[in-house]
């Protein structure tokens, strides 16, 4: 009973003190406020908390919990309860102890009210910081790095797969063409490094996507360079770009001829796009074939193939039945065919105007074929190019036999003379300029030498010498002019 009394009294005091503390600043509550003031001090730290009405109800259950931990104190309190003052002090001690135990159980006491109580606590005491990501033992924070490494691995995988595919395609092509080439050429496969001219019998790999093959040793031609220009399957960026814009693998064949293997003409046949591009880019086509490309339908060839030619006679001579047969059957694989005796490659862009001399020309036959499959080729598709190689060989033989008649020859010679004259005219002004500048440079150098001479005597003598030289030159020129005038007369 007494213990219950002891417990109830502090509870009642608490209940009384809480409203009293709120009214601390109110003078009406002055009397009997000694207790209240004590209460204020004691309960000062709970002031904010005690504003909640709910907390008052919570104080009731904790005291019973606190009770077992304060049995000793209660016994002291029993003795002390006779004198209320002391007892109250001790009650206060008990209260403070209870308050201490309250503070021990703060978290539990205010369990349901964390949202309201936590700000005050956290403002004063706890500041939670986040652990830096690299100190956390989790790989998830490094997701960008993992992405990067995965991308690199994907690139490497694609490189290996693409390289192998290109290599297999090249090998398949070579295997299907080997017999034909070996029966036609004495030298199949040469990379130019061996001392003796022996066939290497294999392709020369220039790149992961370009393979070369040089064949030589045949009548009617000097040699044949075959370039297998595959797509860049080993580069992932290229693979992705090709998904937007499909492109073909290409086989480019360039046959170089001797002087007597070919008559003088320029001819080209191919798709409209290819012809338009080549007419602008190629030096010889732009000079000799100035007409617009004509459709090939006139000669029995599919109409999407157009023809550029120097003379109609050339086309008639070339487009015999066998050639037309070849072209019609494999029209979708033909990108362009270019026969020229004035081949010098694409137009060279020079910064300082025109080049000072004509570019070297070589009699050449150029073939560009598209590999069927539009990028998704399999090694089996390479066999389909074999008939085209037959066409190449046939063309080489045919060109050797094709001769222009007299009219055609005259026309061709006239064309070439015209082109050369134009070129000389264009460069004449430039050559004159170049000579002029050279002469001026010489004069300036001489003058500088004279000026830099310290000795005035020497200077005078040098000046006189240069003057004499100039006079001599003038006299010579005048003599020449006189001679020309006499000749003209």
């Amino acid at each position: 009973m007494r213990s219950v009394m002891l417990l109830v009294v502090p509870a009642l005091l608490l209940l009384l003190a809480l409203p009293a503390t709120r009214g601390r600043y109110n003078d009406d509550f002055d009397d009997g406020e000694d207790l209240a003031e004590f209460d204020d001090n004691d309960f000062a730290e709970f002031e904010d908390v005690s504003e909640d009405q709910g907390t008052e109800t919570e104080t009731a259950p904790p005291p019973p919990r606190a009770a077992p931990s304060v049995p000793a104190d209660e016994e002291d309190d029993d003795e002390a309860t006779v004198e209320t003052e002391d007892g109250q002090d001790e009650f206060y001690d008990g209260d403070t102890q209870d308050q201490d135990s309250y503070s021990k159980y703060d978290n539990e006491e205010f369990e349901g009210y964390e949202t309201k109580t936590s700000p005050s606590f956290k403002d004063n005491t706890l500041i939670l910081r986040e652990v830096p990501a690299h100190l956390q033992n989790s790989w998830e924070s490094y997701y960008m790095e993992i992405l990067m490494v995965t991308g690199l691995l994907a690139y490497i995988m694609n490189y290996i797969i693409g390289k192998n595919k290109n290599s297999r395609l090249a090998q398949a092509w070579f295997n299907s063409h080997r017999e034909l080439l070996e029966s036609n050429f004495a030298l199949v496969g040469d990379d130019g490094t061996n001392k003796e001219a022996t066939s290497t019998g294999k392709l020369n790999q220039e790149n992961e996507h370009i393979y070369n093959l040089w064949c030589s040793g045949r009548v009617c031609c000097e040699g044949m360079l075959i370039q297998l220009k595959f797509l860049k399957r080993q580069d992932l960026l290229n693979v992705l770009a090709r998904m937007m814009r499909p492109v073909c693998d290409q086989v480019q064949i360039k046959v170089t001829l001797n002087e007597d293997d070919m008559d003088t003409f320029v001819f080209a046949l191919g798709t409209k796009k290819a012809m338009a591009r080549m007419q602008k880019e190629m030096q010889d086509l732009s000079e000799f074939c100035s007409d617009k490309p004509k459709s090939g339908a006139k000669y029995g060839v599919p109409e999407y193939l157009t023809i550029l030619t120097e003379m109609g006679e050339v086309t008639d001579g070339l487009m015999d039945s066998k050639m037309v047969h070849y072209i019609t059957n494999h029209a979708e694989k033909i990108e362009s065919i270019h026969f020229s005796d004035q081949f010098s490659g694409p137009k060279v862009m020079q910064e300082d105007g025109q080049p000072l001399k004509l570019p070297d020309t070589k009699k050449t036959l150029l073939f560009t074929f598209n590999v069927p499959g539009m990028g998704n080729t399999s090694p089996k598709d390479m066999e389909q190019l074999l008939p085209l190689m037959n066409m190449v060989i046939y063309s080489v033989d045919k060109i050797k036999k094709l001769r222009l008649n007299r009219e055609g020859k005259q026309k061709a010679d006239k064309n070439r003379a015209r082109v050369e004259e134009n070129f000389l005219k264009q460069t004449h002004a430039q050559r004159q300029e170049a000579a002029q500048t050279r002469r001026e440079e010489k004069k300036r150098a001489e003058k500088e030498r004279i000026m830099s001479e310290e000795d005035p005597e020497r200077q005078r003598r040098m000046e006189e010498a240069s003057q004499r030289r100039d006079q001599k030159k003038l006299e010579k020129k005048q003599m020449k002019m006189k001679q020309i005038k006499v000749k003209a007369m």
Partner: protein
Amino acid sequence: MSINNMADPRRQNKIFRYKPPSTEANPTMEDPTPDYMNLLGMIFSMCGLMLKLKWCAWIAVYCSFISFANSRSSEDTKQMMSSFMLSISAVVMSYLQNPQPMSPPW
């Protein structure tokens, strides 16, 4: 005529050696990708090292890989290896100085 058709067109005495067309007009015709990627890779790796930017270093690694994939066989491997090493060292140095993971720009 039949004899002509059967005749062997091969002529051993007419063999010409292969001359690689390396000197004429090659810089304009050849693909400039490996050279550009090499240069880009070096620039990015220097940026990554000096400015301590992780994404620069990673892009440098990618650039050197792309340059390697597009390179010609005639190019010497020393150049490739040096650009590889430079970009990898840029990545490693960026992470040693600042082990925090890379944050995406969004």
